[in-house]
């Protein structure tokens, strides 16, 4: 269980997160929607310890991330996929995927490589395992990013606008893979602009506006006429996004 309690985050005089309470249980697929600047990415960055909290607490499976040992444990349970891929440029796709398992989980190299190749093959990159990021397209790089996160066998997968930097064709490739992942029961937390995608695969939708939770409910309910759509702000947002 990921537990987010009363979390607040300020950047200078700008309050980006203003008292967020959220629970994510294993097996859930949760999408966080909201306008740019609503605090969505910041929330994920607080979750994996890339940003310090100004108030509140976050714990992952009981480990509080404001303690060094807790943060370490939390990071082991969470895999992150980034909007800009953030692959290690001097390493091949294979090496990108095997680095953490070998160094952190102490998996022996041959086994790590075998598992990595299997992962890469499952996303269609079996033949490109020895290519360098510079030689891959955006969609391929993101797929490597997904494999890199999965290689650590995380309990929770954090995905921060992972298709925002891709063109429509590559976006479709990646969303496809993510849909398959969701179907396997992996716990996933998406920050995304892809409303349709969120509607199709999420079990739950969370809507963030100016650092506050405006809605937090099962998907069907969210998109129902008397659900979240009843809130004018949300309706406005959704209509803008689907133009």
């Amino acid at each position, binding site marked *: 269980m990921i537990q987010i309690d009363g979390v607040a985050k300020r950047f200078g005089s700008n309050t980006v997160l203003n008292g967020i309470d959220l629970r994510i249980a294993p097996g859930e697929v949760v999408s966080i929607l909201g306008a740019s600047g609503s605090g969505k990415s910041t929330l994920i960055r607080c979750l994996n310890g890339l940003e310090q909290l100004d108030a509140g607490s976050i714990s992952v499976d009981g480990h509080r991330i404001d303690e060094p040992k807790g943060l370490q444990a939390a990071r082991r349970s*969470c895999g992150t996929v980034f909007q800009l891929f953030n692959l*290690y*440029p*001097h390493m091949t796709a294979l090496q990108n995927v095997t680095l*953490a398992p070998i160094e*952190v989980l102490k998996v022996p190299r041959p086994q790590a490589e075998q598992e990595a190749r299997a992962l890469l093959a499952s996303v269609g990159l079996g033949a490109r395992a020895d290519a*360098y990021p510079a030689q891959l397209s*955006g969609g391929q790089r993101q797929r490597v990013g997904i494999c*890199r*996160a999965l290689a650590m066998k995380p309990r929770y997968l954090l995905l921060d606008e992972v298709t925002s930097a891709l063109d429509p064709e590559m976006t479709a490739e990646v969303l496809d893979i993510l849909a398959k992942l969701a179907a396997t029961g992996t716990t996933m937390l998406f920050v995304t602009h892809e409303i349709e995608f969120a509607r199709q695969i999420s079990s739950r939708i969370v809507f963030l506006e100016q650092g506050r939770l405006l809605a937090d409910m099962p998907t069907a309910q969210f998109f129902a006429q008397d659900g979240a759509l009843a809130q004018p702000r949300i309706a406005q947002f959704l209509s803008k996004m689907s133009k």
Partner: protein
Amino acid sequence: MTSLTPYLGEFAAGARLTALACALALVGSLALGVVVALMRTSTMPLARRVADIYVDIFRNVPFIVQLFFLFYGLPEIGPELSPFNTGVLALALAGGAFTSDVIRSGILALEPGVLEAAQVSGLSRITIYRRIVLPIALRTSIRPLGSVFVNLILTSSILSAITINELTGVAKIVASDTFQPFEVYGLLLVAYFAMTTLVSLGAGVLHRRLNRHLHGGAA
């Protein structure tokens, strides 16, 4: 010009000494430069301060003064180093300051996102430095490091001032022996030029080789 040929052997010996001194100093500079660069980019204010002071001093004091300080001053407080070792030490200390500049730039140029990806996968700080930060920083620093090496070679000529018979030291002897200073020093100039050009070219080749995967066409 042909009257210089009997001295070829001595010139070769001098060149070897220059090469040896510079090679040793380069290794020293690199090691020192990495350590100092890490100190300068560390989160500990004390480490940063000490490193900044070191770089400040060695960049703003002439090399010959540093050399004399070590050559005449060190024996006072203990270690009796040979002129050659003193020279290499001086070169390494000075070179380390400039090298740390280069490597520090390389570290700061690292994309923050790549660092974040490494952090959230649970890699320890040491591993991140060893497998991600330094390999990338060094790769991008090859050309400027080549410049530092060129600088080392040129600065090594000053070692002749403490009785080391490297290339310039040998040339001084030959010039006064043959009464042909113009030819000797002219040739010496060209010889250094040739050496530094070779190093620059070598750095370019090494840079391309090590960085060939970092820039490429997308599939």
